[in-house]
């Protein structure tokens, strides 16, 4: 880091020599999620320079993927953005299906979309409420976490796990939708809406909250684009880039939704974009539920990809062998490479996968949206005050698992 102040004192000034204070924030600091270190140069409370050092949660995600079968990547993918694991699961499944040319049944795609948007709602709820909590508004945080818990109850009912579902499969999903899937989702959506209104009524008319959010942590449109920022952070600067609209995957072409954009690129815009996206996600879910067929297969009908039913595994020799081959050798993905990108909770979640024709990935490269968003963070913060780090960093929604991989 370069020093910005003069090394030599001017003899003619009467002021006391003052040096900026260098201070370490993190990695064990409540606002840094335990995964980031910020080295700051402070002039009083103003941040003169800032060095953001990620990497404390590096677990070797990409390398780990190369030692198992393609299907064994899903538990790792769960732990990228652990606030919305379903989006990662689906994103990786889509990437492999794109490379292998697999088509999944229509019902599966609707199911994936509903679960994905559901995960996006929980992601945005967590991020926004945590931003408010870090500003000292504890009450809206617990309201949002309460409703997130209800949503996790449904995800648990569907997948068996509250957070790391490992529910995606290549060519389908681990389980078909449960019997009461649609009813339970339709029952929880109005409650989400209610809590949203309640939270907004507590925060958005509050002068203190607005003063802390508006005009803080600004990022210009050009700078955002040149840093490669995506997702709500980019949309808050006024660029309406949303992968779901720009290059629709699954059935996003067939549903009607808007892409909310801000114009200042400050904390408030990011906050509002996320809240509006929750509403749009609910709109998408309602349409998907109307269009999703109640019966039909969820998994693609290909024994080389999908595990046979357990009764077949124990009952027939074909089933036993298919099961053995799929588990021991994995799904044979044709040699080649492809880049598949979806709209994750924080932006463009890309998987660049290379296959050499065996059952094991040759290379899995993940484009984590957080990492690119974090790059813009330094520009947002320089010139602001120490206390502004908290809401700005919170509204970036840096998820350690995804950023450091």
């Amino acid at each position, binding site marked *: 880091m370069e020093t910005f102040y003069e090394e030599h004192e001017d003899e003619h000034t009467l002021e006391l020599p003052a040096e900026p204070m260098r201070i370490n924030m993190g990695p064990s600091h409540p606002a840094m999620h335990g995964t980031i270190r910020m080295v700051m140069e402070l002039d009083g409370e103003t941040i003169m320079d800032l060095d953001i050092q990620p990497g404390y949660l590096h677990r070797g995600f990409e390398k780990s993927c190369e030692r198992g079968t393609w299907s064994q990547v899903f538990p790792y993918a769960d732990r990228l953005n652990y606030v919305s694991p379903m989006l990662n699961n689906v994103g990786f499944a889509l990437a492999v299906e794109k490379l292998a040319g697999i088509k999944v049944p229509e019902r599966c795609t609707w199911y994936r979309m509903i679960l994905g948007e559901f995960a996006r709602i929980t992601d945005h709820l967590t991020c926004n409420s945590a931003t408010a909590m870090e500003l*000292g508004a504890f009450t809206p945080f617990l309201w949002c976490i309460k409703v997130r818990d209800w949503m996790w109850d449904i995800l648990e009912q569907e997948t068996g796990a509250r957070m790391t579902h490992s529910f995606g499969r290549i060519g389908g999903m681990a389980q078909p939708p449960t019997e009461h899937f649609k009813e339970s989702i339709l029952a929880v959506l109005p409650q989400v809406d209610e809590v949203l209104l309640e939270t907004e009524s507590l925060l958005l008319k509050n002068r203190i*909250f607005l003063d*802390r959010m508006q005009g803080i942590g600004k990022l210009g449109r050009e700078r955002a684009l040149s840093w490669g920022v995506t997702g709500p952070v980019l949309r808050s600067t006024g660029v309406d880039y949303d992968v779901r609209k720009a290059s629709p995957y699954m059935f996003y072409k067939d549903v009607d939704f808007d892409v909310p954009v801000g114009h200042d690129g400050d904390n408030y815009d990011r906050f509002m974009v996320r809240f509006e996206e929750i509403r749009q996600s609910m709109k998408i879910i309602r349409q998907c539920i109307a269009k999703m067929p109640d019966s039909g297969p969820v998994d693609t009908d290909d024994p080389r990809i999908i595990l046979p039913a357990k009764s077949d595994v124990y009952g027939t020799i074909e089933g036993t062998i298919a099961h053995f081959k799929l588990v021991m050798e994995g799904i044979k993905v044709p040699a080649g490479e492809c880049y598949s990108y979806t709209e994750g909770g924080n932006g463009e979640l890309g998987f660049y996968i290379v296959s050499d024709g065996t059952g094991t990935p040759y290379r899995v490269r993940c484009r984590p949206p957080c990492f690119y968003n974090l790059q813009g963070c330094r520009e947002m913060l320089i010139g602001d*005050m*120490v206390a502004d780090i908290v809401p700005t960093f919170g509204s970036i929604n840096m998820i350690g698992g995804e950023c450091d991989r």
Partner: protein
Amino acid sequence: MEFGWFLLATVLKVSFILGVTVLLYAPVFVLFERRQSAMVQDRIGPMMGGVKMPRLVIDHLQTLQMGAFGMAALCGLLFLFATAQVWQGNGTEVLFTEPVLGVRHTWNGMMFVFGALAAVHVPLGVVLPYLFHHDRLTIFGGLHALFDAIKAFTKEDVVPPEADKFLFSLAPIIAMVPALMLGAVIPFGPTLYVDYLFEQLPAEGTIGGAAIPLQVASLNIGILYMFAVGGAGIIGAALAGYSSNNKFALIGGLRAASQMVSYEVCLGLTIVPLFMLYDSLLLDEMVQWQVDHVWGVVVQPIAFVLFLTASIAEYKRVPFDAPEGESEIVAGFFLEYSSGKWLMYMLAEFFEVATSSMLIAVLFFGGWDVPFLGRGGWEAFGYAFDLSGTHWAILSEVANSHVFIVAVQIGAFVLKALLLGMLSIQIRWTLPRFRYDQIMQLCWRMILPLALVNILVTGIFILLTGI
């Protein structure tokens, strides 16, 4: 008054004000903070800590409750019977004839005793199930808070190796003691005339005999003492930040020092209009003015809002808790403190809430004043509460007796401060935190000019009306 009696009275007064602060306000505010937050945030709250009760008690909770209600009903019946007797003129003018718990009693005394017993047993029965959570006695979660305090005290007390050990240990004491000393000038009741405890006093005129003002010390500098002693609390915070050898603590200490010094100015200027109206700096005379005229909040609502804001900032609670700023500078000036020293900071905070609530009650809500209750008894719109000559004479005699009036007034004062403290706790769970520079701007650009304008307007008003 003899010196011995004076000493005894002073010791009693000091122990009352300290006892109310330490044993009533601090635990009740801690409990309220947790229960209130649990209520607004839809969670069960501090219900984990508690004493495991025997199965027998838990299983028969409903029986106990029914027992309480039954007792209330029985006492109620006896109360009604006694009342009927008094109605027919069987009560005598006195409460009890000589042997109090013996056989000789009067219907008047029966009426009072059983009325009180019935009134106590109904809330007891209602509250009983809420004292328990599952199979534990939790007392609304109060035991959880108590256990938390015990846990904090018994933890290891860590002093950072590079810290200034002496100042580090001194700082929490400096922070806590002024908060307790503030109670010394707060009048918590009217003057007590010891010789006439059970008699009705004349509403006007001087009264002879021994008189005890219910205030530890009526200093002639009055409220200036509050500012002087309260200002000492700044040293506690600044010293903690300085001696901890931690940059976050240093930032916190600096924030605390500048914020408290700034708001000290506001705190003084916001109540200057009150001095002008009350024409005194003495807190007891301020209360007396409000007893004679109206409560301060009616004549100076703006001063009340400004003073409430400034006092919350002065004791560094949300939304003015930038010196602690838990999310950015971790815990601010007491970041390095642990165990009992940490607890002293937390307690100091609640003591400050208590004393500032008491001060606001004195300045703006008439202190111990109860509407329609004067020294001479209850009186509303010219009608005195006087039943002498009827069968019910004993009622007004008790209600107008000096000791009863004083007790009601002290109770009213304690209750007012309690409600004001709850208000500040509700604010704490509703608002987010200011940024440090916004706090300073609010102080110098908003509160200070408004306070000055308020002084000007009050001055013009006084000049014109010639109060």
